[in-house]
């Protein structure tokens, strides 16, 4: 393992590291968030020219497009031909790794770089706010790791480090004015060594800091879903109220890195039925809302992909009507994943639970009611 401490400004140091990777020829391209020319938003840029990296924002204050989707598009038709760095938030990296398992990302030639993520602002509050002030506040959060006004899911994010990347950029636990570069894979080591970085820095302080923050986030997250958010959305009435604003536009599905299906079931002809079918349903209930099948879309989608949901919040950012859709998916996903002790992105060898089974498992989900009454009452 290679782990080094880099002295100096964290922001400039991170960019300098990326520029060196490209400049020294260790890689041929870098994918990194970049301010758009108007300066009021960000987009991923596939950068070839090293000096361009100087203007990148490797840690952007908002997530406009989920990076997992970016990598999926980049490699849809095959792996990259030159080694390419992709700078991803931890949840984007988790999505990318999930997409590798689902054959939607070709990982060969990609060098992943991820970092301690301070969170992101809700897209709308960022676009409506004072960009310069917000950017300054955001850069400050790289120091103390407290981002006031971050998206609700970011505030209870429990996988906030780049530990699954080839190279992790670590701020937590590093003395102010320094940060760590940590290689987790042979490719990562090779890249660091190409820049002359060798050695094994003592990471005990960092590990402690990460552990402490993880522990407090885990209990905050659990409490948030159980005590605060859960009661607001659970139960037929509360759930319907949550979705009353939903216009069934499917934006949440389109921006989701995990919903990669070329044709979504919920947009297929399976749900477009003849008028008499709608009329029959309207007759049965007395009326039928249009567009129909809103709750079916959301709960059905949860069935399809909540196991792989990486709690990235992209869906909620994309919702035009402020439906707390990512929190719903994250809350439900935490619980569905717990059945299988599954964690999206954790292990490339770990099969997605739908593609796996044990012969002896889940007995508690089978007809428990029959055992007690199968006896003939007269035999008791």
């Amino acid at each position, binding site marked *: 393992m290679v782990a080094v401490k880099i002295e100096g400004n964290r922001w400039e140091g991170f960019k300098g590291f990326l520029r060196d990777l490209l400049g020294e020829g260790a890689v041929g391209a870098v994918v990194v968030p970049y301010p758009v020319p108007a300066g009021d938003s960000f987009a991923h840029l596939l950068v070839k020219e090293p000096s361009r990296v100087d203007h990148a924002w490797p840690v952007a204050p908002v997530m406009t497009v989920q990076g997992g989707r970016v990598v999926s598009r980049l490699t849809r038709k095959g792996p990259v031909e030159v080694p390419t760095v992709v700078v991803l938030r931890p949840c984007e990296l988790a999505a990318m790794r999930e997409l590798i398992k689902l054959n939607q990302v070709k990982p060969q030639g990609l060098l992943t770089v991820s970092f301690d993520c301070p969170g992101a602002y809700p897209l709308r509050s960022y676009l409506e706010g004072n960009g310069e002030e917000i950017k300054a506040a955001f850069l400050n959060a790289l120091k103390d790791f407290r981002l006031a006004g971050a998206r609700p899911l970011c505030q209870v994010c429990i996988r906030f480090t780049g530990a699954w990347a080839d190279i992790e950029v670590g701020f937590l636990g590093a003395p102010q004015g320094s940060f760590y570069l940590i290689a987790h894979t042979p490719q990562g080591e090779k890249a660091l060594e190409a820049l002359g970085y060798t050695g094994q820095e003592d990471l005990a302080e960092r590990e402690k800091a990460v552990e402490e923050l993880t522990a407090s986030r885990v209990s905050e997250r659990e409490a948030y879903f159980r005590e605060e958010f859960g009661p607001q959305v659970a139960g037929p009435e509360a759930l319907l109220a949550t979705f009353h604003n939903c216009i069934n536009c499917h934006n949440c599905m389109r921006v989701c890195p995990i919903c990669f299906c070329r044709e979504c079931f919920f947009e297929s002809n399976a749900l477009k039925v003849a008028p008499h079918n709608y009329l029959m349903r309207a007759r049965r*209930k007395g*009326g039928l809302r249009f567009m129909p*099948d809103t709750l079916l879309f959301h*709960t059905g989608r949860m069935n399809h992909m909540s196991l792989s949901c990486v709690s990235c919040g992209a869906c909620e950012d994309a919702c035009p009507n402020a439906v707390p859709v990512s929190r719903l998916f994250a809350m439900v996903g935490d619980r569905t994943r717990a059945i*299988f002790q599954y964690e999206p992105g954790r292990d490339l060898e770990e099969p997605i639970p739908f593609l796996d*089974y044990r012969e002896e498992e889940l007995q508690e989900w089978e*007809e428990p009611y029959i055992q007690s009454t199968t006896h003939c009452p007269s035999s008791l």
Partner: protein
Amino acid sequence: MSEPFEPKIVGFLCYWCSYTAADLAGVSRMKYPPNLRVIRVMCSSRVDPVFIIKALLDGADGVLVAGCHPGDCHYQKGNYYARRKVALTKKILESLGLGPERVKLSWIAASEGPKFAQVAKEFTEEIRRLGPNPARAEIFL
């Protein structure tokens, strides 16, 4: 007052076992309640969770998924996958407070006509106790 509540239950039965058991129960003239509407599927694993949710949101009071006993699936492992899918669906319904107990998973072999009749009876009673599915009258789904 309105009519007494008669549960409507959708049953997805696998062709090779549970549907045959239902057939057997029928030809053996076993008594079971008429509340179960049977849909034959080739294997319990054919039941996409979306079918279950669709039935519930359209007003079914209960959904039964039944297939061959574990180890006996005609396609070897279909029912193991089905069990995972049903567990997931029930967990989602539970998390959203939508009545996971309205969904049952049961293994009924081809020869188990009496077990089929009993499952149908007990599930109907269970649903009767739960009362009508609130989604029955809900327009804004």
